[in-house]
Protein backbone atom coordinates (compact mmCIF):
# COMPACT_ATOMS: atom_id res chain seq x y z
CA UNK A 1 0.00 0.00 0.00
CA UNK A 2 2.90 2.38 0.71
CA UNK A 3 6.28 2.78 -0.91
CA UNK A 4 9.04 1.10 1.04
CA UNK A 5 11.13 4.28 0.75
CA UNK A 6 8.74 6.14 3.06
CA UNK A 7 10.43 6.89 6.38
CA UNK A 8 8.09 6.13 9.25
CA UNK A 9 8.31 8.70 12.04
CA UNK A 10 8.55 7.16 15.51
CA UNK A 11 5.23 6.65 17.25
CA UNK A 12 3.17 6.37 14.08
CA UNK A 13 3.11 2.60 14.09
CA UNK A 14 2.69 0.18 16.95
CA UNK A 15 3.18 -3.53 17.15
CA UNK A 16 -0.01 -5.50 17.71
CA UNK A 17 -1.08 -9.12 17.43
CA UNK A 18 -1.83 -8.39 13.77
CA UNK A 19 1.65 -6.97 13.14
CA UNK A 20 2.65 -3.35 12.64
CA UNK A 21 -0.43 -1.16 12.72
CA UNK A 22 -1.15 2.56 12.70
CA UNK A 23 -1.05 3.89 16.26
CA UNK A 24 -4.64 5.02 16.73
CA UNK A 25 -3.90 6.39 20.20
CA UNK A 26 -1.79 9.16 18.70
CA UNK A 27 -3.93 9.54 15.59
CA UNK A 28 -0.97 10.56 13.50
CA UNK A 29 -1.13 8.88 10.10
CA UNK A 30 1.05 8.27 7.09
CA UNK A 31 -1.89 8.25 4.70
CA UNK A 32 -5.59 9.14 4.89
CA UNK A 33 -6.54 5.54 4.03
CA UNK A 34 -5.29 4.40 7.44
CA UNK A 35 -8.28 6.21 8.90
CA UNK A 36 -10.86 3.92 7.29
CA UNK A 37 -12.57 2.17 10.18
CA UNK A 38 -11.76 -1.34 11.35
CA UNK A 39 -11.88 -3.18 14.68
CA UNK A 40 -8.70 -1.39 15.87
CA UNK A 41 -10.15 1.99 14.86
CA UNK A 42 -13.94 1.61 15.04
CA UNK A 43 -16.41 4.34 14.17
CA UNK A 44 -18.04 5.67 17.35
CA UNK A 45 -21.27 4.40 18.88
CA UNK A 46 -23.09 7.40 20.31
CA UNK A 47 -26.06 6.94 22.60
CA UNK A 48 -29.36 8.64 21.86
CA UNK A 49 -30.47 10.52 24.98
CA UNK A 50 -33.36 12.81 24.05
CA UNK A 51 -35.26 11.34 21.12
CA UNK A 52 -35.77 8.06 23.00
CA UNK A 53 -37.05 7.31 26.52
CA UNK A 54 -34.32 7.41 29.20
CA UNK A 55 -34.63 3.65 29.80
CA UNK A 56 -33.94 2.86 26.15
CA UNK A 57 -30.34 2.06 25.38
CA UNK A 58 -30.04 2.97 21.70
CA UNK A 59 -26.95 3.97 19.78
CA UNK A 60 -26.13 5.31 16.37
CA UNK A 61 -22.92 4.12 14.79
CA UNK A 62 -21.48 7.24 13.20
CA UNK A 63 -20.15 6.01 9.88
CA UNK A 64 -19.54 9.58 8.73
CA UNK A 65 -16.46 9.60 10.97
CA UNK A 66 -14.79 7.64 8.17
CA UNK A 67 -12.30 9.81 6.23
CA UNK A 68 -14.39 10.21 3.06
CA UNK A 69 -17.55 10.77 5.02
CA UNK A 70 -19.67 7.64 4.93
CA UNK A 71 -20.13 3.93 5.57
CA UNK A 72 -19.11 3.40 1.95
CA UNK A 73 -15.44 4.02 2.75
CA UNK A 74 -15.32 0.45 4.06
CA UNK A 75 -17.06 -0.90 0.98
CA UNK A 76 -14.91 1.03 -1.49
CA UNK A 77 -11.71 -0.11 0.17
CA UNK A 78 -12.72 -3.79 0.11
CA UNK A 79 -14.02 -3.57 -3.47
CA UNK A 80 -10.77 -2.10 -4.78
CA UNK A 81 -8.55 -4.41 -2.74
CA UNK A 82 -10.44 -7.41 -4.10
CA UNK A 83 -10.23 -6.20 -7.68
CA UNK A 84 -6.53 -5.46 -7.35
CA UNK A 85 -5.86 -8.92 -5.92
CA UNK A 86 -7.70 -10.52 -8.85
CA UNK A 87 -5.81 -8.39 -11.38
CA UNK A 88 -9.01 -6.68 -12.56
CA UNK A 89 -7.62 -3.15 -12.24
CA UNK A 90 -4.64 -3.56 -14.54
CA UNK A 91 -4.79 -0.83 -17.18
CA UNK A 92 -8.52 -0.34 -16.70
CA UNK A 93 -10.81 2.52 -15.80
CA UNK A 94 -13.51 2.13 -13.16
CA UNK A 95 -17.22 2.59 -13.73
CA UNK A 96 -19.80 2.27 -10.96
CA UNK A 97 -23.47 3.10 -10.39
CA UNK A 98 -23.85 4.97 -7.11
CA UNK A 99 -26.17 7.38 -5.36
CA UNK A 100 -23.10 9.29 -4.27
CA UNK A 101 -21.33 7.95 -1.21
CA UNK A 102 -19.73 4.89 -2.81
CA UNK A 103 -18.72 7.14 -5.68
CA UNK A 104 -17.10 9.66 -3.34
CA UNK A 105 -15.13 6.96 -1.51
CA UNK A 106 -14.17 5.22 -4.75
CA UNK A 107 -13.19 8.56 -6.32
CA UNK A 108 -10.91 9.42 -3.40
CA UNK A 109 -9.28 5.98 -3.41
CA UNK A 110 -9.02 5.96 -7.22
CA UNK A 111 -7.37 9.38 -7.16
CA UNK A 112 -4.79 8.12 -4.65
CA UNK A 113 -4.09 5.14 -6.90
CA UNK A 114 -4.05 7.11 -10.16
CA UNK A 115 -7.16 5.31 -11.48
CA UNK A 116 -9.87 6.96 -13.59
CA UNK A 117 -13.47 6.66 -12.40
CA UNK A 118 -16.83 7.21 -14.10
CA UNK A 119 -19.95 7.17 -11.95
CA UNK A 120 -23.54 6.85 -13.15
CA UNK A 121 -25.94 8.55 -10.78
CA UNK A 122 -29.73 8.26 -10.44
CA UNK A 123 -31.76 11.43 -10.67
CA UNK A 124 -32.49 13.24 -7.42
CA UNK A 125 -29.01 12.96 -5.93
CA UNK A 126 -28.17 16.26 -4.20
CA UNK A 127 -26.01 18.73 -6.08
CA UNK A 128 -23.46 18.68 -3.24
CA UNK A 129 -22.57 15.06 -4.02
CA UNK A 130 -22.18 15.74 -7.75
CA UNK A 131 -19.81 18.61 -6.98
CA UNK A 132 -17.79 16.51 -4.53
CA UNK A 133 -17.43 13.76 -7.13
CA UNK A 134 -16.22 16.23 -9.73
CA UNK A 135 -13.86 17.82 -7.18
CA UNK A 136 -12.32 14.37 -6.72
CA UNK A 137 -11.82 14.06 -10.47
CA UNK A 138 -14.59 11.57 -11.28
CA UNK A 139 -16.57 11.71 -14.53
CA UNK A 140 -20.20 12.07 -13.53
CA UNK A 141 -23.09 10.77 -15.68
CA UNK A 142 -26.47 11.80 -14.25
CA UNK A 143 -28.99 9.15 -15.34
CA UNK A 144 -32.65 10.05 -15.87
CA UNK A 145 -35.07 7.50 -14.43
CA UNK A 146 -36.84 7.01 -17.78
CA UNK A 147 -33.61 5.99 -19.51
CA UNK A 148 -34.51 2.33 -19.25
CA UNK A 149 -38.21 2.31 -20.07
CA UNK A 150 -38.43 -1.46 -20.17
CA UNK A 151 -36.37 -2.10 -17.00
CA UNK A 152 -36.93 -1.18 -13.35
CA UNK A 153 -37.54 2.57 -13.43
CA UNK A 154 -35.14 3.38 -10.59
CA UNK A 155 -32.32 1.19 -11.86
CA UNK A 156 -31.28 3.24 -14.89
CA UNK A 157 -27.90 4.14 -13.35
CA UNK A 158 -27.11 0.46 -12.76
CA UNK A 159 -28.04 -0.51 -16.33
CA UNK A 160 -26.00 2.36 -17.76
CA UNK A 161 -22.87 1.46 -15.76
CA UNK A 162 -23.20 -2.17 -16.84
CA UNK A 163 -23.55 -1.09 -20.47
CA UNK A 164 -20.37 1.00 -20.20
CA UNK A 165 -18.49 -1.90 -18.64
CA UNK A 166 -19.73 -4.57 -21.07
CA UNK A 167 -20.16 -2.81 -24.42
CA UNK A 168 -18.10 -4.56 -27.12
CA UNK A 169 -17.02 -1.15 -28.43
CA UNK A 170 -15.18 -0.52 -25.15
CA UNK A 171 -13.23 -3.78 -25.44
CA UNK A 172 -12.70 -4.42 -21.74
CA UNK A 173 -11.45 -0.91 -21.02
CA UNK A 174 -13.70 -0.60 -17.97
CA UNK A 175 -13.97 -2.59 -14.76
CA UNK A 176 -17.06 -2.34 -12.58
CA UNK A 177 -16.69 -2.95 -8.83
CA UNK A 178 -20.48 -3.60 -8.72
CA UNK A 179 -21.24 -2.97 -5.07
CA UNK A 180 -24.72 -4.50 -5.52
CA UNK A 181 -23.39 -7.94 -6.42
CA UNK A 182 -19.79 -8.02 -5.19
CA UNK A 183 -19.31 -10.25 -2.10
CA UNK A 184 -16.44 -7.98 -1.00
CA UNK A 185 -19.10 -5.41 -0.07
CA UNK A 186 -20.57 -7.93 2.37
CA UNK A 187 -17.12 -8.97 3.55
CA UNK A 188 -16.26 -5.36 4.46
CA UNK A 189 -19.09 -5.37 6.98
CA UNK A 190 -18.67 -8.97 8.07
CA UNK A 191 -15.02 -8.30 8.91
CA UNK A 192 -15.23 -4.74 10.27
CA UNK A 193 -18.65 -3.19 11.03
CA UNK A 194 -20.14 -6.36 12.57
CA UNK A 195 -17.18 -7.21 14.82
CA UNK A 196 -16.91 -3.54 15.86
CA UNK A 197 -20.53 -3.49 17.05
CA UNK A 198 -20.05 -6.79 18.86
CA UNK A 199 -16.93 -5.54 20.65
CA UNK A 200 -18.24 -2.02 21.32
CA UNK A 201 -21.35 -3.42 23.04
CA UNK A 202 -19.33 -6.22 24.66
CA UNK A 203 -21.64 -8.73 23.04
CA UNK A 204 -24.74 -7.18 24.59
CA UNK A 205 -26.29 -5.83 21.37
CA UNK A 206 -29.90 -7.04 21.07
CA UNK A 207 -31.04 -5.41 17.84
CA UNK A 208 -29.36 -3.98 14.75
CA UNK A 209 -31.04 -1.55 12.36
CA UNK A 210 -29.87 -0.54 8.87
CA UNK A 211 -31.48 0.53 5.62
CA UNK A 212 -32.05 -1.41 2.43
CA UNK A 213 -29.42 0.03 0.07
CA UNK A 214 -26.78 -2.11 -1.53
CA UNK A 215 -27.56 -4.41 1.41
CA UNK A 216 -23.86 -4.91 2.13
CA UNK A 217 -24.27 -3.55 5.67
CA UNK A 218 -27.42 -5.55 6.43
CA UNK A 219 -26.08 -8.80 5.03
CA UNK A 220 -22.54 -8.48 6.41
CA UNK A 221 -23.37 -7.19 9.88
CA UNK A 222 -26.49 -9.35 10.09
CA UNK A 223 -24.58 -12.50 9.21
CA UNK A 224 -21.80 -11.77 11.70
CA UNK A 225 -24.14 -10.97 14.58
CA UNK A 226 -26.44 -13.95 13.87
CA UNK A 227 -23.42 -16.26 13.99
CA UNK A 228 -22.52 -14.86 17.39
CA UNK A 229 -26.07 -14.91 18.75
CA UNK A 230 -29.05 -15.92 16.58
CA UNK A 231 -31.44 -14.11 18.93
CA UNK A 232 -30.06 -10.69 17.94
CA UNK A 233 -32.80 -9.06 15.91
CA UNK A 234 -31.78 -7.73 12.50
CA UNK A 235 -34.10 -5.01 11.23
CA UNK A 236 -34.17 -3.59 7.70
CA UNK A 237 -35.48 -0.10 7.00
CA UNK A 238 -37.30 0.33 3.70
CA UNK A 239 -38.48 3.64 2.24
CA UNK A 240 -41.78 4.02 0.39
CA UNK A 241 -41.92 3.89 -3.43
CA UNK A 242 -41.01 7.28 -4.90
CA UNK A 243 -39.11 8.23 -1.73
CA UNK A 244 -36.58 11.02 -1.37
CA UNK A 245 -34.05 9.26 0.85
CA UNK A 246 -30.72 8.99 -1.02
CA UNK A 247 -28.91 5.71 -0.48
CA UNK A 248 -32.02 3.76 0.52
CA UNK A 249 -33.98 1.46 -1.76
CA UNK A 250 -37.57 0.39 -1.97
CA UNK A 251 -37.37 -3.18 -3.22
CA UNK A 252 -40.59 -2.98 -5.20
CA UNK A 253 -39.38 -0.23 -7.49
CA UNK A 254 -35.71 -1.31 -7.49
CA UNK A 255 -34.39 -4.81 -7.99
CA UNK A 256 -33.20 -6.53 -4.80
CA UNK A 257 -29.38 -6.48 -4.81
CA UNK A 258 -27.77 -9.86 -5.42
CA UNK A 259 -25.85 -9.64 -2.13
CA UNK A 260 -29.03 -9.28 -0.05
CA UNK A 261 -29.39 -12.32 2.22
CA UNK A 262 -32.97 -12.19 3.48
CA UNK A 263 -32.33 -15.11 5.83
CA UNK A 264 -30.51 -12.84 8.29
CA UNK A 265 -33.32 -10.26 8.38
CA UNK A 266 -36.02 -10.62 11.02
CA UNK A 267 -38.17 -7.59 10.29
CA UNK A 268 -38.66 -4.88 7.69
CA UNK A 269 -39.86 -1.49 8.90
CA UNK A 270 -41.36 0.85 6.29
CA UNK A 271 -40.57 4.53 6.83
CA UNK A 272 -42.22 7.46 5.04
CA UNK A 273 -40.17 10.49 3.98
CA UNK A 274 -42.06 12.77 6.40
CA UNK A 275 -41.17 10.94 9.63
CA UNK A 276 -37.62 10.31 8.36
CA UNK A 277 -36.98 13.99 7.75
CA UNK A 278 -38.74 14.99 10.97
CA UNK A 279 -36.46 12.62 12.88
CA UNK A 280 -33.43 14.00 11.04
CA UNK A 281 -34.34 17.47 12.27
CA UNK A 282 -34.77 16.15 15.83
CA UNK A 283 -31.35 14.47 15.67
CA UNK A 284 -29.81 17.81 14.66
CA UNK A 285 -31.59 19.82 17.36
CA UNK A 286 -31.94 17.39 20.25
CA UNK A 287 -28.89 15.17 19.88
CA UNK A 288 -26.45 17.50 18.12
CA UNK A 289 -26.03 14.94 15.35
CA UNK A 290 -25.49 16.45 11.89
CA UNK A 291 -26.70 13.46 9.90
CA UNK A 292 -28.02 12.63 6.45
CA UNK A 293 -31.71 11.81 5.87
CA UNK A 294 -31.16 8.03 5.81
CA UNK A 295 -30.03 8.28 9.45
CA UNK A 296 -33.39 9.88 10.23
CA UNK A 297 -35.10 6.86 8.67
CA UNK A 298 -32.94 4.44 10.68
CA UNK A 299 -33.50 6.36 13.95
CA UNK A 300 -37.25 6.40 13.29
CA UNK A 301 -37.13 2.59 13.03
CA UNK A 302 -35.00 2.40 16.20
CA UNK A 303 -37.79 4.23 18.03
CA UNK A 304 -40.29 1.70 16.73
CA UNK A 305 -38.31 -1.01 18.58
CA UNK A 306 -38.32 0.87 21.89
CA UNK A 307 -39.50 -1.22 24.79
CA UNK A 308 -39.47 -4.48 22.80
CA UNK A 309 -35.98 -5.50 23.84
CA UNK A 310 -33.81 -5.27 26.92
CA UNK A 311 -30.34 -4.20 25.95
CA UNK A 312 -28.70 -2.08 23.33
CA UNK A 313 -30.21 -1.29 19.95
CA UNK A 314 -27.63 -0.20 17.38
CA UNK A 315 -28.59 1.74 14.26
CA UNK A 316 -26.32 2.69 11.39
CA UNK A 317 -25.84 6.37 10.63
CA UNK A 318 -24.55 6.04 7.05
CA UNK A 319 -23.48 9.62 6.42
CA UNK A 320 -23.41 13.15 7.76
CA UNK A 321 -25.67 16.08 7.01
CA UNK A 322 -23.25 18.43 5.28
CA UNK A 323 -24.00 17.02 1.82
CA UNK A 324 -27.74 17.63 2.08
CA UNK A 325 -28.06 21.39 2.60
CA UNK A 326 -30.11 21.67 -0.61
CA UNK A 327 -32.54 19.05 0.76
CA UNK A 328 -32.73 20.53 4.24
CA UNK A 329 -33.38 24.09 3.08
CA UNK A 330 -37.01 22.98 2.63
CA UNK A 331 -37.29 21.92 6.30
CA UNK A 332 -36.24 25.29 7.69
CA UNK A 333 -37.63 27.63 5.06
CA UNK A 334 -40.27 29.06 7.41
CA UNK A 335 -37.48 30.56 9.48
CA UNK A 336 -37.94 28.87 12.83
CA UNK A 337 -35.09 31.11 14.02
CA UNK A 338 -37.78 33.67 14.94
CA UNK A 339 -37.47 37.41 14.80
CA UNK A 340 -34.62 37.93 17.21
CA UNK A 341 -31.61 39.65 15.70
Amino acid at each position, binding site marked *: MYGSAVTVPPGVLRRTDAGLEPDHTRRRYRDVRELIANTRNPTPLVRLNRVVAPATEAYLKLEWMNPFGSVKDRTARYLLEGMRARGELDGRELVEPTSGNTGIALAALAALDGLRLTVTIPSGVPEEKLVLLRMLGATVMPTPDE*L*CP*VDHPRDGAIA*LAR*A*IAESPAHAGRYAMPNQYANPDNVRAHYETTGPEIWEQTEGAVRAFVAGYGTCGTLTGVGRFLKERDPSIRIVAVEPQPGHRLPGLKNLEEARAPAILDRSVIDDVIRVDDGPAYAMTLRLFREEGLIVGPSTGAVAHAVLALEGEREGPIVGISPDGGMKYASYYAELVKDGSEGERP
Partner: protein
Amino acid sequence: MTDQTMAPDAELDCKGLLCPLPVYRTAQAMGRLKAGEVLRVECTDPGSLADFPAFARQRGYTLLSAQDGDGVQVFLLRKEPAR
Protein backbone atom coordinates in the same frame (compact mmCIF):
# COMPACT_ATOMS: atom_id res chain seq x y z
CA MET B 1 -39.42 12.76 -45.16
CA THR B 2 -39.03 9.34 -43.63
CA ASP B 3 -36.56 8.20 -46.24
CA GLN B 4 -33.41 6.72 -44.70
CA THR B 5 -31.38 8.44 -47.39
CA MET B 6 -32.39 11.97 -46.37
CA ALA B 7 -29.46 14.03 -45.15
CA PRO B 8 -29.53 14.27 -41.34
CA ASP B 9 -28.24 17.33 -39.51
CA ALA B 10 -26.13 15.16 -37.22
CA GLU B 11 -25.05 11.54 -36.97
CA LEU B 12 -24.28 9.34 -34.00
CA ASP B 13 -22.44 6.02 -34.12
CA CYS B 14 -23.60 3.77 -31.28
CA LYS B 15 -22.46 0.51 -32.87
CA GLY B 16 -20.99 -1.85 -30.30
CA LEU B 17 -22.69 -0.06 -27.40
CA LEU B 18 -25.16 -1.91 -25.18
CA CYS B 19 -28.50 -0.48 -24.07
CA PRO B 20 -29.15 1.95 -22.50
CA LEU B 21 -25.92 3.65 -23.61
CA PRO B 22 -27.23 4.45 -27.15
CA VAL B 23 -30.31 6.15 -25.68
CA TYR B 24 -28.10 8.07 -23.23
CA ARG B 25 -25.80 9.27 -26.00
CA THR B 26 -28.80 10.11 -28.18
CA ALA B 27 -30.38 12.19 -25.40
CA GLN B 28 -27.16 14.20 -25.17
CA ALA B 29 -26.94 14.61 -28.96
CA MET B 30 -30.59 15.70 -29.26
CA GLY B 31 -29.88 18.36 -26.64
CA ARG B 32 -27.34 19.90 -29.01
CA LEU B 33 -29.77 20.02 -31.97
CA LYS B 34 -31.94 22.97 -32.93
CA ALA B 35 -35.69 22.60 -33.31
CA GLY B 36 -36.60 20.88 -36.57
CA GLU B 37 -33.19 19.22 -37.01
CA VAL B 38 -32.78 15.50 -37.53
CA LEU B 39 -30.36 13.04 -35.91
CA ARG B 40 -29.36 9.71 -37.49
CA VAL B 41 -28.29 7.00 -35.03
CA GLU B 42 -26.75 3.62 -35.82
CA CYS B 43 -26.97 0.86 -33.18
CA THR B 44 -26.16 -2.83 -32.95
CA ASP B 45 -28.00 -3.76 -29.72
CA PRO B 46 -31.41 -5.14 -30.81
CA GLY B 47 -32.82 -3.80 -27.52
CA SER B 48 -32.69 -0.37 -29.13
CA LEU B 49 -35.70 -1.35 -31.29
CA ALA B 50 -37.79 -1.25 -28.10
CA ASP B 51 -35.91 1.57 -26.38
CA PHE B 52 -35.95 4.24 -29.11
CA PRO B 53 -39.74 4.42 -29.69
CA ALA B 54 -40.29 4.66 -25.90
CA PHE B 55 -37.52 7.24 -25.57
CA ALA B 56 -38.89 9.38 -28.43
CA ARG B 57 -42.40 9.25 -26.97
CA GLN B 58 -41.21 10.28 -23.49
CA ARG B 59 -39.07 13.14 -24.75
CA GLY B 60 -41.51 14.40 -27.37
CA TYR B 61 -39.21 13.68 -30.32
CA THR B 62 -40.54 12.35 -33.62
CA LEU B 63 -39.16 8.96 -34.62
CA LEU B 64 -39.17 9.44 -38.39
CA SER B 65 -37.98 5.92 -39.09
CA ALA B 66 -36.57 2.79 -37.50
CA GLN B 67 -34.92 0.19 -39.71
CA ASP B 68 -33.22 -3.07 -38.87
CA GLY B 69 -30.96 -4.85 -41.31
CA ASP B 70 -27.65 -6.73 -41.30
CA GLY B 71 -27.51 -6.47 -37.51
CA VAL B 72 -27.56 -2.68 -37.60
CA GLN B 73 -30.53 -0.61 -36.44
CA VAL B 74 -30.84 2.87 -37.90
CA PHE B 75 -33.05 5.54 -36.35
CA LEU B 76 -33.99 9.00 -37.57
CA LEU B 77 -35.19 11.34 -34.84
CA ARG B 78 -36.47 14.88 -35.29
CA LYS B 79 -36.45 17.51 -32.57
CA GLU B 80 -39.80 19.29 -32.70
CA PRO B 81 -40.22 23.01 -32.09
CA ALA B 82 -41.25 23.78 -28.50
CA ARG B 83 -44.99 24.32 -28.20
